[in-house]
């Protein structure tokens, strides 16, 4: 079943076109990779899906509702490129705040907060102010916040930037297991070995989708030996 889609989405900031008629679909149970060079519109696409950016024209839909819809948002977990954490609060207080914005309360909230801390291996540091966290820890906490209300659609904007290879591998295992459990996961990246781990890829350039399909299909179609080569060839 379709979790979310963009259809003919256009958005310009002054003379720059961030989205230029972008089409995108995400199905439940898959990891969709959004790849493209810096400034190609990946972040704008992610923001349009979570209702933080309203397209000038075209459609942004999540679970059949036009975004921004507060009802749909309670099923969406979003992680921006910036960590967006309160430095003066500890990890648990950060989680508690965002959980309460999602309407979680009482024992149910506590249970989810502890589960997410554990999932991101932050239990031991949960009482420390975030100010002292390393880049990797901040990313993990940010991801824990995106997961705290058990969303069925995850929109993750460059979630693994700044992570060491081991941590990055573990994160991808998490994304895969979330998809296996039926969630839809959208990940933007420009790391090609991460693209290989996606079920499907959408290659975007200048706010338009220029290719899409599974990593194998994309390679076969283009005759490129690797996604890297395809990426370099497709982006003029």
């Amino acid at each position, binding site marked *: 079943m379709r979790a979310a889609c963009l259809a003919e989405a256009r958005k310009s900031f002054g003379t720059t076109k961030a989205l230029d008629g972008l089409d995108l679909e995400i199905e439940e149970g898959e990891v969709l990779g959004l790849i493209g060079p810096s400034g190609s519109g990946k972040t704008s696409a992610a923001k349009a899906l*979570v*209702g*933080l950016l*309203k397209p000038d024209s075209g459609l942004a839909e999540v679970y059949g509702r036009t975004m*921004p*819809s*507060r*009802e749909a*948002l*309670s099923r*969406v977990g*979003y992680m*921006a490129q*910036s*960590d*967006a*954490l*309160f*430095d*003066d*609060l500890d990890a648990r*207080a950060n989680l508690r*705040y*965002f959980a*309460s*914005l*999602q*309407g979680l*309360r009482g024992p149910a909230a506590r249970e989810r907060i502890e589960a997410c801390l554990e999932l991101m291996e932050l239990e031991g540091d949960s009482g420390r*102010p975030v100010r002292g966290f390393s880049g990797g820890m901040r990313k993990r906490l940010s991801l824990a*916040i995106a997961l705290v*209300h058990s969303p069925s659609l995850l929109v993750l904007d460059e979630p693994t930037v700044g992570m060491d290879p081991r941590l990055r591998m573990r994160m991808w295992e998490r994304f895969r297991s979330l998809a296996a459990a039926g969630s839809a996961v959208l990940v933007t990246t420009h790391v090609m070995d991460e693209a290989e781990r996606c079920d499907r890829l959408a290659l975007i350039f200048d706010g338009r989708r220029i290719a899409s399909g599974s990593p194998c299909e994309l390679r076969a179609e283009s005759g490129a030996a690797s996604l890297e080569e395809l990426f370099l060839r497709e982006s003029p």
Partner: protein
Amino acid sequence: MRRALAIAARVLDQLRRDPRTIVLVLGAPLLVVFLLHEVVESGSPEPRIAVVGSDRLAEAIRGEAEVLRPESAQAAAAMLERGEADATVELDEAAGLLDSSPAVSVDAADPSASAAALKALRDGLSDYARASLPAFAKAAAKAATPRISYVNGSPDETAFDYLAPVVLCFLVFFFTFILAGIAFLRERSTGTLERAFAAPLRRRELVGGYMLGFGLVAAVQTAVIQLFVVLVYRAPNAAGFLPALAIDLSVAFAALAMGLFLSAFASSEFQMLQFIPLVIVPQVLFAGLFDLRSGPSWMRVAADFFPLTYAGNALRDLMIRGRSLASVLPDAAALLAFGAAFLALAVRGLARYRRDE
């Protein structure tokens, strides 16, 4: 509503973990009030007056000022020149007031010192006149002495008492504006604001949460300052504690709304501080520290657009003149209207994050 409470709780949680800011919010106003009290109440030094000629005039002035007795008019002029005296007066004892008039010179460099010297001179001269004039003139002088009664306070009221209400509302305004503005700005720049809008949060819930959290801070702060001013410095508080608190909370409301709205136009903490000379200093100048009645008319019109004008009026009416809260309702309404207008603008300004309402 629950989400607004969550935001208020988080704002307070952040403050709780920042003891330095708590000390600043509660301690700095007390320090300012203390310094103001010391400066305003320290009084001015006794004027020094050089009297040439009449001994009886010198005696009469001695009660009002420090009297110097130079040998000659030239010596007196030299003292004035060197700054050893604030004024000189020359009167021929033998001729008296009926046949000659006193010649007075005043050092004009410091207006407050020369005003004090002139007042002392006038008082001394009138004492001297009363003592030396014939009986019919004494009767005339007595007839001209008015009987004075006081309304709206007592003659014991000091300059500090008069300034205290204005300073009180200024401090509440200043701290609330800066604290809320910077906190909101930080949320914008770190992305936590955007992240909050990735949750099903309404714009008015966010703004409401901020109002609640910082409103509570302002309530504690204004209570502390008010108690300090009234209990320690015995400033008049004729209408009682709660009406003044209500006005100060309206001030905090207006300051909060202005801070939230204006923080959208600042991209760094430094730019937020740049609003101080634009938004805060003019308000202080126009809010009742100085009497604007004789100023140009644009000044009085401008004062009408500053929330602190209404706050200062209302607090003086309550604390000094002892009027009831009902009688200052128009001022309170103006404050709340300012707050509501800026609040609406602040909510509108958040439309770039969320447009579904």
